[in-house]
């Protein structure tokens, strides 16, 4: 959620039942403005909170040139001292993050050991041998970075047309975006995932009859499997506000005001994916 309309956004997102306490609100908003100016970010966004057993993590991100490629994530435990999240490369860390059962503790330097799945050698439909499952040392800071990355990749939502791809390939917020109108707002295919597109450009373009190269390059949330079940779309506040909640990551909420460029998402949760989704409809 853009910190330009921090307070208003928080109020809109209260339909998930959570928001910040007055102290956190003041601390986070102002420290983020400071962070933005010190880092010369052209956009600064509050990402949400991951609740832990002791101290909760608050996450934010900012960008300078390209709002998809060079996002920088920050986290804080106290609400005003922001630290940069490490960039995780290793696929093993991601795997360990997904497999880790324990809740977050609230100590970034804590190291837990996670047992990965055993790997199998398979030849001609027969399991030849199984390797002993590897144990990976997982630092909570890295785990946090990985989980933030995964959540953002999977369910950060923006309305169609909010991002604009320039001719040189950079992606920036569309200054001309005036909000979805009340005909488009009901259709879930008018919302996109805020990530570097994974689907083919052609695939994304061909889904629409009124496609636009500069706008429709992003993946659409209607394509997330299970189709039409990964997100739930609601109207609230006299049907003037759209709330989209992710069913995969309970706690991820997105809002968009009709006929306004205000939109944003926040995650308030414990960093647990809902793996039971296919049994829950």
């Amino acid at each position, binding site marked *: 959620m853009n910190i330009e309309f921090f307070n208003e956004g928080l*109020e809109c997102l*209260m*339909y*998930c*039942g*959570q*928001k*910040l*306490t*007055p*102290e*956190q609100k003041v601390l986070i908003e102002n420290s983020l403005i400071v962070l933005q100016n010190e880092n010369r970010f052209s956009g600064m966004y509050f990402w949400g909170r991951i*609740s832990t*057993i*002791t101290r*909760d993590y608050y996450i934010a991100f900012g960008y300078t040139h390209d709002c998809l490629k060079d996002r920088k994530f920050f986290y804080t435990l*106290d*609400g005003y001292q922001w630290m940069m999240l490490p960039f995780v490369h290793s696929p093993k860390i991601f795997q360990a993050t997904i497999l880790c*059962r*324990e*809740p977050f503790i609230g100590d970034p330097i804590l190291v837990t050991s996670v047992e990965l799945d055993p790997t199998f050698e398979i030849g001609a439909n027969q399991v030849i041998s199984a390797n002993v499952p590897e144990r990976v040392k997982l630092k909570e800071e890295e785990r946090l970075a990985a989980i933030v990355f995964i959540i953002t990749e999977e369910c950060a939502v923006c309305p169609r047309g909010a991002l*604009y791809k*320039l001719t040189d390939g950079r992606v*920036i917020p*569309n*200054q*001309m975006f*005036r909000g979805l109108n*009340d005909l488009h707002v009901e259709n879930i295919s008018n919302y996109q995932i805020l990530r570097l597109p994974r689907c083919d450009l052609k695939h994304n373009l061909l889904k629409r009859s009124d496609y*636009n190269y*500069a*706008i429709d390059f992003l993946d659409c949330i209607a394509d997330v499997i299970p189709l039409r079940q990964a997100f*739930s779309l*609601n109207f*609230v*506040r*006299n*049907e*003037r506000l759209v709330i989209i*909640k992710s*069913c995969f990551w*309970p706690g991820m909420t997105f809002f968009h005001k009709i006929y306004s460029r205000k939109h944003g998402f926040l995650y308030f*949760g*414990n960093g*647990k994916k*809902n*793996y*039971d989704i296919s*049994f*829950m*409809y």
Partner: protein
Amino acid sequence: MDTEDKQSCDNFTLDTTSSSKLNYPCGGLEMKRKLDDTEKPEKSEDSTDPCAHMISTSSSSSSNTIMSQYFASECEKRDQTRKEPPNIGYELNVAKAIMQQYSTISGDNLFDHLSDIIKRVIDERPPNVIDFFEEFSRNVREQKLHLPERFPPDGVFEESRLYRVAKKLLLSMKLPAPEPHELPAADEMTALEESKSAILEGLKLDILDLSRFITFNERVQHLQFFWNQCGFGINPDDIFQLACAMDRLQTHPSIMQCRFWGMISGLKASYYIVEASLSHEEVLSRVDQMTEELQEKRKEMLQRIVSGVRPTPTFIGPELIPGKLGWDQHPIEEIEKMVPEAAPIPLVEPKEVFSVPPELVGAGTNRYSYFVVNNVSDDWIELPMVTPGQIRASREIKKFLTGDLEADIQSYPCFPGKEKHYLRALIARITAGTYIAPYGYYRTMTKKERRAYDGIEDDEEEEEEEEEPSVLGEGEEDTIDNDVMLLKNEKYEPEQLESLTDTEKWLHVRPNLLLQGRVIWYDELKAQKVREKEIERLKKMLHMEEMGVEEDELELEEEEEEDMEGEEFSVPEEGPPILHPISNDRSDQYTIPWVSRFTSKYTNRNERILVMQSNVWPGAYTFTFEKLCESIYVGWGHKYVARNMLFKHLPPVMGEYPHGNEDFIETTDPTPEEEEAYRLSLLKKQKKVDDGEQLDEYDDEYSADTNTTDQDEEE
């Protein structure tokens, strides 16, 4: 005029470095000025301000088009008086004409479009327009096509989507309708007050009596302030409407008091839930109705078992044929008498389906009733009572609520009920698990109070000694009575918030739900015995009615049977008592079930609030501030699981025939020769049967035959 024009053009080309002389149309502004100039003599208007004129021409494309046609004809006229080749005026006209070519597809032209864009840029001054030029241009064109200015203003009116909602909301608030003749304000006031006082007089006794038992805090807007401080709750826009809606509910005669329970999100809509305790009359009438219904149901069931009427199978297996080979050659009368030799059709064995009965209204899990609403302006809908079976089933499944109370729950194991039942079971579980208060905040009722609460007249003044109300669940009594209502302790002295972070200091204030799905354990074994006895008794009665024996003897027998009791004794399931510390909570999924948070860590230490949040039910919060302590739930209604839910597996597929290993013996397939031999032997047998042989012999011989062949093969 012309010379002026030329000069300005020349100036322009000299000033700009980017556009060459050949590229005149690039300078849009310049072009417009040109247009402006050419227009002036033709229309012979005395427009002193060229700028204003320019805007007026470019704003409406219709006037432009007419003008340009006119202009084209003018150009042809000028052609005759054409000057020498390096003529800026002529070149410009040519360029403009190119740009004004109408599209054969959309009927638009580039010139109008560019002038519209320029007008918009200058009017609106959007930032960084050059970066979004394509998008901007697309927007301008889109709006031009959508512009409904030419329609009469009320020709087409689309009803706004907000209208319906707004109207519903206003209706729901039940505002007084404007009356045709207005009463004087004073009269109204006095009338109101009179009626109020009359009501008060009538209810005075009741109010005084019941006010002692009000344990709910129904002031939502007051609580909203604290929720806001704590960082959860519901949206401030809805809170006023919620307060209105709760007021509507509160005034209903059958409701004693109500409080806001929380919100559970659904896929299509979320539920706002209110917890209400019913008035005594309502509870009594409901209990009567319920016991009646239960007894009737039981009677029906018993009757069915006793009478021995078994439901006929809906599906009869393979067709049975009378037990003689060649039966079809017998006459029909004989066939009717024949008995099939196969096993009889298996009849459905009615299993006892007596389930653990639900607790009565006003007791245990059904102590409070719950009202839900999708939208705060709707009417409240009461949820049905919860049964132990529903609670048990809901523990094994995890479902998204849809927002439709009548939706089906498709799950394994099968959930007995609709979504409203599931929601009710969830509420019961969450309430039992997450309602906590600091030590000493609540106390149990004294006996006197309980009697008053139950509505029993306190005639006897014998038990005058005041007993101390206990603040802990473990009373002097041996049996733990979990099903009690707690009262706020008047003597509660709030401790320092810092010391309250210890989970030892917090107690559960709602009765624990047993695994059975009830608050008070129900002895299923005993109930079964009672049932059996009753069935026997009924059977006997039935028998005796047939025989004509009087009932006196029957009672004698009953007395005898009473001695049989107590042989088998089932151990009652015990859970933690009400008011036990939350530090004893155990969860196999989460090591630390409760965490505490202060709303202000660094700054405002005087006025901070302590929030306890449950990790087992994410979304359940309890806050305490001075003498106030309230719990609320806002979430999805899902219990925490460390990774994924351990769903019950489907049972293995049932065998069609009971069989062991020896029933299937592996042998080699017979060769064609053997098959041929077998066929011949069959033919031979058939002949014998036709001669009048008995089937039994045939069977014996046949089995002997096969045995020998098997032996042959083995050898």
